[in-house]
């Protein structure tokens, strides 16, 4: 049995459905992330787990027990608030001791437990300070220490790193992973930042408009998005849309708009004529100048196909298309090229600037050839 079970939970605010029949089972010891754009319902869901909000429908079970009748203070669940919510009139020690005092822990045991919590979050020596004397990262740690000191069953984190600058955020991400391993408490983490979710989580539930779009491990979600929303939300993605023209033998062909027939490895059984889409990451597209092949590209030169006069090309396992560079964006480590096909389809491609074999930068107006293997994309019905 899962530790935390969310069963068909819905929450409506007037006409707006913030959370729409969500079911999630979270295992003990898991680092679980609710990921989605603002307004997708992730925070509302978290608040319902904490008890600050109640579901209109559905149940939330912890260790098999329905939490509906338990107010926030009686749930073995602690929240790390986005604003940290440290009590400004209490010292760091006072903040961490507060949940112990509320739990009527014998006064003699409090100092040792506070010290242990300070140690957990690496804040030894900061106990006498007040919240306004701490940096953002330190406040963050106090908030986590305060939440962990009573050893809750589940720790809820509401965008805890949103207020920190990029560098500190990365440090805290590593610390959070280590801390979670150390204390072994289940983390339910809410964020709108997909890289943060991919980096931290064991599993991710991608939410949109109150619903869970996809629930899987980070690598699966990135490589095999099951919906257009997930493909678009997680990283950059080209969505090639069009009717399915053929399927079978593990390959689906669609007549992509502005592009032509595109083949993609997929075991999906789709009947011809139905519309579908292929999600294609920019970095999976190889780009080469269409006139000179030798040493100019990172594409495999030996597999260069015969180009047809209308700009389309085919081989057995690869997709090949001609186009013109219409925009480029130099980003330091990589360059993004927007390539337009003669039929007006725009694809975003991405080349590493220091990759092996990379010797040429393209200019606007350059004629290029794009290619990607059949298994580079992912078919979405």
């Amino acid at each position, binding site marked *: 049995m899962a530790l935390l079970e969310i069963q068909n939970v819905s929450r409506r605010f007037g006409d707006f459905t913030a959370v729409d029949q969500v079911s999630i089972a979270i295992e003990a010891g898991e680092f679980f992330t609710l990921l989605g754009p603002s307004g997708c319902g992730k925070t509302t869901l978290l608040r319902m787990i*904490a008890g600050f909000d109640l579901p209109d429908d559905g149940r939330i079970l912890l260790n098999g027990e329905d939490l509906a009748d338990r107010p926030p203070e*009686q749930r073995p669940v602690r929240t790390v*608030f986005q604003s940290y919510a440290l009590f400004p009139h209490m010292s760091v020690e006072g903040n961490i001791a507060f949940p112990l005092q509320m739990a009527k822990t014998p006064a003699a045991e409090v100092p040792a437990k506070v010290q242990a919590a300070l140690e957990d979050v690496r804040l030894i020596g900061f106990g006498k300070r007040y919240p306004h004397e701490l940096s953002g990262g330190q406040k963050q740690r106090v908030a986590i220490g305060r*939440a962990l000191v009573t050893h809750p069953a589940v720790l809820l984190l509401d965008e805890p790193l949103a207020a920190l600058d990029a560098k500190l955020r990365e440090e805290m991400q590593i610390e959070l992973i280590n801390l979670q391993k150390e204390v072994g408490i289940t983390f339910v983490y809410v964020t709108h930042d997909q890289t943060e979710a991919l980096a931290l989580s064991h599993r991710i539930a991608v939410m949109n408009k109150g619903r869970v779009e996809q629930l899987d491990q980070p690598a699966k979600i990135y490589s095999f998005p099951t919906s257009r929303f997930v493909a678009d939300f997680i990283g950059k993605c080209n969505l090639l849309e069009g009717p399915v023209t053929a399927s079978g033998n593990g390959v689906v062909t669609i007549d992509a708009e502005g592009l032509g027939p595109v083949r993609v490895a997929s075991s999906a059984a789709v009947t011809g004529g139905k519309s579908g889409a292929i999600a294609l990451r920019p970095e999976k597209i190889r780009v080469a100048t269409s006139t000179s092949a030798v040493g100019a590209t990172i594409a495999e030169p030996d597999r260069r196909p015969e180009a047809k006069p209308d700009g389309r090309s085919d081989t057995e396992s690869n997709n090949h298309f001609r186009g013109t560079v219409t925009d480029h964006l130099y980003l330091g480590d990589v360059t993004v090229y927007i390539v337009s096909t003669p039929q007006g389809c725009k694809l975003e491609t991405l080349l590493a600037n220091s990759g092996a074999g990379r010797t040429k930068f393209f200019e606007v107006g350059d004629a290029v050839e794009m290619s990607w293997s059949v298994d580079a994309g992912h078919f979405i019905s």
Partner: protein
Amino acid sequence: MRRHPVALWAAAAAGYAFLYVPLIIVVVYSFNNSRLNAEWVGFTLDWYDKLFHNQEMLSAAGNSLLIALVASLVSTVLGTMAGVAMYRYKTRLLPILVLTPIAIPEILMGVSLLIFFVLLNFTLGLASVALAHIAFCIGFVAIVVRARLAGMDESLTEAARDCGATPWQAFRHVTLPLIMPGVIAGALMAFTLSIDDFVITFFTAGAGTVTLPLQIYSMIKIAVTPEVNAVSTLLMLLTLALIVIASRLTPSLLRSD
């Protein structure tokens, strides 16, 4: 660009002069050795001496202090409750009841309470004045407390609950200490409003009860004497002290929101 055109400075200086010259004159003449508030004759403390031997004045001051103490205490408790309720819960009736007494001309509250007390056969006196003062002070306290709550991070109360505090414990250990400066500022405001009130007191005090403002009123209706200047100066000093303390505690007191 000149940020402060001379004309603006001059107009603003005139504004401040308009506000303060009359009060300064009252203070200055309280030390003037002349019955007339006309020409400076010489320095004296006689008027203060007279004041402290004026039995009517002293008993009026005693009444005022007693009413102000009771009214500020009760209205602080009720006003804090109202402020918390108005901020935290969506209530329609409470804000109307709390804020209307502040918004309408004072005389309306004075005469309606007069009818009310007389019809109830409630003897007009210290008690009726205090009850009336509480009613109009609640709103001022509630506004200050609500402003203080609005400046407080809402998640602090939730964090307290999350840490295992019951609603009462969360209020007692987190919310109340954090809004305390607002509560004290509200109490000082209520005290000042009560001790200074003339209009509502005028209608609800009845014939036998005299407060300081009522005493001042009857004195200036009869004759202008520097004794009034002296009591005015003392009253201004008291008010000044209370308001400076209150505004120190709640900077937002100064803002009209």
